[in-house]
């Protein structure tokens, strides 16, 4: 082949090669949406703790955008700007909200929840961000609940102490009952004429007095109980119920993740076992290659 022709062929080949490479790169970037126009939106938050540049914004589990900018405002709040691709713009409508998801395992991300049949949001519009609690937040929110529960228990303790004290109503009532029954026992002529028996009269008087006081005590106790349960409902049961739901959600998340890790670990274990068995086979084969007649017998120490 002539030298000039060869030079042209090589040049053509190199040129074609670069064109193909650049073409593939362009196609790849185009498919990734690098050249597409992006639409910016923003939201305000109290803290930038869980946010970082490039953090994904998800919709129905798909990445539709990412955080482009985080700024600290003069009033101490944080301004976070994010952008979405053109094809996902339709999901951002008026009334859409963002929720920051902070799983116990895995990196945090923002979920977009959109409302149906509402007009689309304009570019650079601001959205509302709702923060979902992570385990630290839950523990923090539990602290006042625990303190309230402690206060209630203190109150219950005070009540029981009062009831048991010498000058409490309960003790006084019991003392009065004692005096009354003693008096009735001494002066029981009225009832005796009705019952015809002194013993029956005494029993009736005791029973009536006891029943009356028991009823009073029950009334008092029920009243106290009602107060306590009311307080419990407001201060403990309702927040605890919400907290338990959150914990349940987190636990499910952990279980799901650990479940998949568990499977992976079992597979890894199996592969390691096979690997060890194979390496043992290789060792045996290498040993066999080096073996001599004397290697057939074990020499005891």
């Amino acid at each position: 082949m002539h030298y000039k022709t060869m030079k042209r062929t090589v040049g053509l080949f190199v040129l074609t090669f670069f064109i193909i490479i650049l073409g593939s790169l362009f196609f790849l970037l185009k498919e990734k949406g690098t050249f597409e126009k992006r639409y910016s939106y923003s939201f305000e938050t109290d803290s930038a703790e869980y946010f970082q540049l490039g953090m994904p914004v998800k919709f129905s589990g798909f990445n539709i955008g990412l955080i482009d900018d985080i700024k600290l405002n003069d009033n101490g709040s944080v301004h976070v700007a994010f952008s979405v691709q053109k094809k996902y713009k339709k999901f951002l409508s008026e009334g859409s909200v963002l929720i920051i998801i902070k799983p116990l395992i895995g990196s945090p991300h923002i979920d977009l929840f959109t409302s149906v049949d509402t007009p689309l949001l304009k570019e650079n519009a601001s959205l509302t961000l709702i923060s979902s609690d992570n385990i630290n937040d839950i523990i923090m929110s539990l602290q006042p609940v625990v303190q309230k529960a402690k206060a209630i228990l203190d109150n219950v303790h005070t009540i029981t102490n009062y009831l048991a004290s010498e000058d409490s109503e309960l003790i006084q009532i019991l003392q009065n009952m004692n005096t009354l029954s003693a008096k009735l026992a001494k002066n029981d002529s009225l009832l005796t004429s009705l019952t015809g028996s002194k013993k029956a009269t005494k029993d009736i008087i005791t029973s009536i007095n006891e029943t009356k006081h028991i009823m009073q005590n029950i009334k008092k106790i029920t009243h106290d109980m009602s107060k306590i349960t009311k307080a419990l409902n407001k201060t403990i049961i309702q927040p605890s119920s919400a907290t338990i739901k959150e914990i349940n959600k987190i636990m499910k998340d952990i279980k799901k993740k650990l479940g998949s890790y568990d499977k992976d670990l079992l597979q890894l274990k199996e592969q390691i076992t096979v690997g060890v068995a194979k390496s043992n086979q290789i060792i045996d084969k290498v040993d066999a290659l080096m073996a001599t007649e004397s290697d057939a017998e074990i020499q005891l120490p």
Partner: protein
Amino acid sequence: MIKYIPFLFLLFLACGCSLKTPENQWQYKSTNAFNSYTKNFLSSKDLLAKNDLKRAIKHAKQSANLHQLAKIYLGACALNISVGTQDTCEKYTNIALLVENNALRSYYKLLTKHIKKQDIKYLNKNYRIFAHALINKDYAKAEKSIFHMQRNSSKILAMALLAKHVSYASLQEIINIASYQGQKKVVLFWLEESKKHVSNPNELNKINQKIKVLQ
């Protein structure tokens, strides 16, 4: 020269292919694995040693001839005793009735210090004088005989069997032998034992420091 290399390679390959592998490969594999176990065990490479012992047992169990398996169990027991670990050779005793072998039985008796005069003839030559002295409770002679043994592993085992009666000099000698061979487990055992012979606090401190460094 370069053109001869492929020829040499082919020749080497042909030689390799022409080598006939023995039919009792399980025995070779088991022996090799046990030898490797001995080395790794004494060097305190426990993970490797465990794997080697497993391999040795696995290969030995390929055959109905339990002689090899019994030897492995006895060997493992002897090694444990060599480094001061209590071992009653239970695994061997479990299959002892299935293996009618006087040499193994005598060796087991030596390990458990129940050897009798009539068993000595079945023992390896290495141990005969030692066993005789042991039966006669002539510990000085037994100790002396240890250093006439040919194999170092036998010396270490005999020393461990005589542990309570060895002199400090012999003890130092065995530490030197084990140290030279890198048998960490043996060295640690005898360093611990040497503490019983030392009353000088400085010396004791030195030994303790040595143990600390080795651990």
